[in-house]
C-alpha cells in the first residue's frame, strides 16, 4: 500500500501525486488553480526558512506557489 504524506515534505526535484486535500482548511481557490486529487506535482523551488514552495503542476504545465502552512493540508503519494 502506498503511504500518504504532506506535500511540504517533498524535496526540490521530487514528484508526487496529490491524493487528498483538506477541504475544510483550504479555500476552493486551491482546487481552482489546479491542485486537485490525482494531479502530479513537482517541487521546483523552496524559499529558505520555510518560505513558500514553488510547484510545477504537470498536466497544466504551470508553476504555482503556495505557503508551507497550506502545503501541510495537502496529502500526496509517490
Amino acid at each position, binding site marked *: 500500500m502506498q503511504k500518504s504524506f504532506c506535500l511540504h515534505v517533498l524535496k526540490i526535484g521530487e514528484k508526487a501525486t496529490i491524493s487528498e*486535500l483538506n*477541504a*475544510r482548511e*483550504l*479555500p*476552493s*481557490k*486551491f*482546487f*481552482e*488553480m*489546479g491542485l*486537485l*486529487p490525482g494531479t502530479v506535482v513537482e517541487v*521546483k*523551488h*523552496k*524559499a*529558505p*526558512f*520555510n*518560505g*513558500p514552495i*514553488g510547484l*510545477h503542476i504537470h*498536466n*497544466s*504545465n*504551470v*508553476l*504555482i*506557489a*503556495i*505557503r508551507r502552512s*497550506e502545503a501541510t493540508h495537502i496529502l500526496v503519494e509517490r
Partner: protein
Amino acid sequence: MRDPIIALLGNPNVGKTSLFNRITKLHQHVGNYPGITVEKREGSVKANGRNYRIIDLPGTYTLYPTSLDEEIVYNALADKHNPVHPDLVIVVSEPNNIKRSVVLYQQARELGVPALFVINMIDEVNEKGLEIDYAKLEGYLQTRVLTTDARNGRGIQKVIEAFDERPGHFLGKFKVDEKYTEALEEAKRAFPLNTEYQTWQFLAQNHVSFLRDEDRQKIRAIREKYSLRPNELQQAEAIERNTNIEKDIKEIVFLAENRHLTKTNRIDRLLLHPFWGYAIFFAILFVTFQLVFTLSAPIMDWIDEHFSALIDYTASILPEGPISNLITQGIMAGIGGIIIFVPQIAILFLLISLMEETGYMSRVVFLMDRWLRPYGLNGKSVIPLMSGVGCAVPAIMAARNIENTKERLVTMLVTPFMTCAARLPIYIVLIALVIPDDTFLGFGLQGIVLNVLYILGVLAALLSAWVLSKIVKSQHKSFLIFELPSYKTPDWRNVGTNVWDKTSGFLFGAGKIILAMAVILWVLGSFGPNDKFSNADQYVMEANPGLSEEELEEEVASFQLEHSFLGYIGMGIEPLVKPLGYDWKMGIGLVSSFAAREVFVATMATVYSLGEDVDIEDEDQKTTLLGKMKSEINRNTGQPAYNLASGISLLLFYAFAMQCMSTIAIMKRETGSWKWTLIQTGMMTGMAYVVAFIAYQLIK
C-alpha cells in the same frame, strides 16, 4: 439604444490587458466601480456601424470571489442590474492554459451570459509543442473560437467583427452531485427567475452582495437545513468541472511534445536561489532607487527652475498685491509642488511595471513572503514598502497589487513610515545642528544617526503593521496562492498605459487636494489679524532704525510671519509643543510641515529672516541658516532652541509624523475612506508626539 457592453474575462497573465489595449486602440480611461475603489478599466471602439463599451474585468481564475477584484467580476456577470453587466463576454485564454479558461467560460455561460472564446498568444502554440483541433473546440464550447496575438495585433480585427455575435443556448456541463440536488431544488423554488447554475452559485457563496437581505436569509436557511458549507460546494464544483474538462480536452488539444517551462525554469534556478535570488533582488532594488533619483534629479531641477521662472514672470506682469501673491505663491507654487514629483513617480512606475510585465514581480513575492508574514503583511507588500523610500505617494498606489484587502490596507497604512526623500533635507539640517561632528568606532556620528533614522522608519512600519494586523478585520481568510508566470518580454503598450494611468492619477487626483492645502497655507501665512501684519515695516523700522534695505526686507518678512495667522497658530500651539522642547517658531515649522515636510527648511529660513530661497546644498547659505538657528534661544527654557534634546525630539517627530498632504490625499483616494486616512494620520502623528516627548524628557 444604449451601446452594447463587451467584457473581457480571463485568468491573470493571459495577455488580457494587451488585448484590451489593442481593441480600444488606447481609447480608454480608468474609473472606479460604483461604491468601491477597485479600478475599472473601460474603453470604447467604433466598429460594425456602432459604438461598443469595452470593460477589462480584473484577472481571475474563477467566479467564486476570494478578493475584492474577483467579487467585481462575479457581480458584473451574475447581477443583471449591474451597470457593467455585459451583453457579450470575451473569454481570453492562452494556449498553455486552455483548461483553466474553459472553467471560467463554462461558469459564465451557465450564469446565462453569452460568450466567445479567444486564444491569445497564439504564436506560442508551436513553441509549447501544442496542437489544437479548432472545429472540435468550437463544438465543445458551443461558440466561436478566435485566435489572436495581441502583441502584434494579429486577429484583433476578427474579434471586433464578432462583437455582434450571440451564441445560442448553452447546454450546461456541470452536473450537481446527487447529495446536493434536494437543497438545490428547494433553492430553485425560492429563486424561480434565475438559471439553475445561478441558484447553485447563491448556495455556494457565503455572501452574495447584490442580493436583497431577505433573499440572503432564504439561502442561509436552506444551507443550514441541509448543513452545507459554501467552501465544500465550491470544491465539489471545481473537482467536477476539472475532471470532465481534463478528460474532454484531451481529444481537442494535443500536447505533441511535453516541453516543460525549460527557459523559465533555468532563469528561476538563479532568481529564486536561496542566496543568489536575494542578492539579485536587493541589487535590483538598489539600482532601481539609484535610477529613480539619478534619472529624475535633472528633470526635477529643470521643472523647478522653469517653474520658478514662470512664477517670477507671472508676478512681474500681474499688478502687485494679494491677488498676485495668491496666484503666484499660492496656486502656482502649489501646482509646482505637484509637478515636481511627476518624474520620480513616472520612473518608479516604469520600473515597477517592467518587473510586473516580465513576470519578475511574482518572484519577489515568493522571496519576500516569509519575511513579511510575521508582521501581518504579504510578500507583495515589499514593493510599496521599498518604494516608500522614494516617495509614499506612488508607493501607496503600488499596493494595488495586493489582492487581500486587509493586507493591502495594512500595507498602505504603514508605508509612510518609510523614510521618504522629503525627510532627507530636514534630517541633514537638524543633524548638522545638534549632533557633534565626532566619530564613533571609526564611523562619523552624524552618518550613524542618519542611518539609524532610516532603520527606525523600517522598524516603525513593521511594528505598526504587526499591531494593525491584530486590529483590522478581514473579510477574506489570509492565504497565499499565486502563479509564477513564465518570463516574457514586456509589452511596451501595457507599460506605457500603466505609467500614464498612475502618473496622471496622481497629478489630477491628489493634485486637487494638494492645491487646496497650498492655498490655505498661503492665506494663513500671508495675512494677519491686525495692523502688526499690514504695517510691519513701520514696526520694524521703529524698533531697528538704521537697517540696510535688504536687512529691512528680511526683518519685515520675519515680523510679518510672526504676526500672520500662521504665526499666531504657531504661538497658539506652543503649549502643545512645549513638552517636546520646541518654541513657537519651531511650532510654525511643524504646522507648515503638515503641508509637506520639505516646507520646514523654507519656513525656518523665513522665520529666521533669511529670505525664502535657501538652497540647502549651497554651503554659504547653509552655514548662515545653521548659524542663526544655533544662536537661537528658546525663550521658555533659556537654553539654545536647538540643543541635543530638542534636536533629537524634532528628528524623531519628523521620522514618525504624518506630515504630507500628498500622502493624505492619496490615502483618501486609494482607500476611498476618510476613516482609515484619519486613523493613519492620527496614529503616525500620535506616535511621533509620544516618542518625541519621551526622548526630550529623557535627554533634557
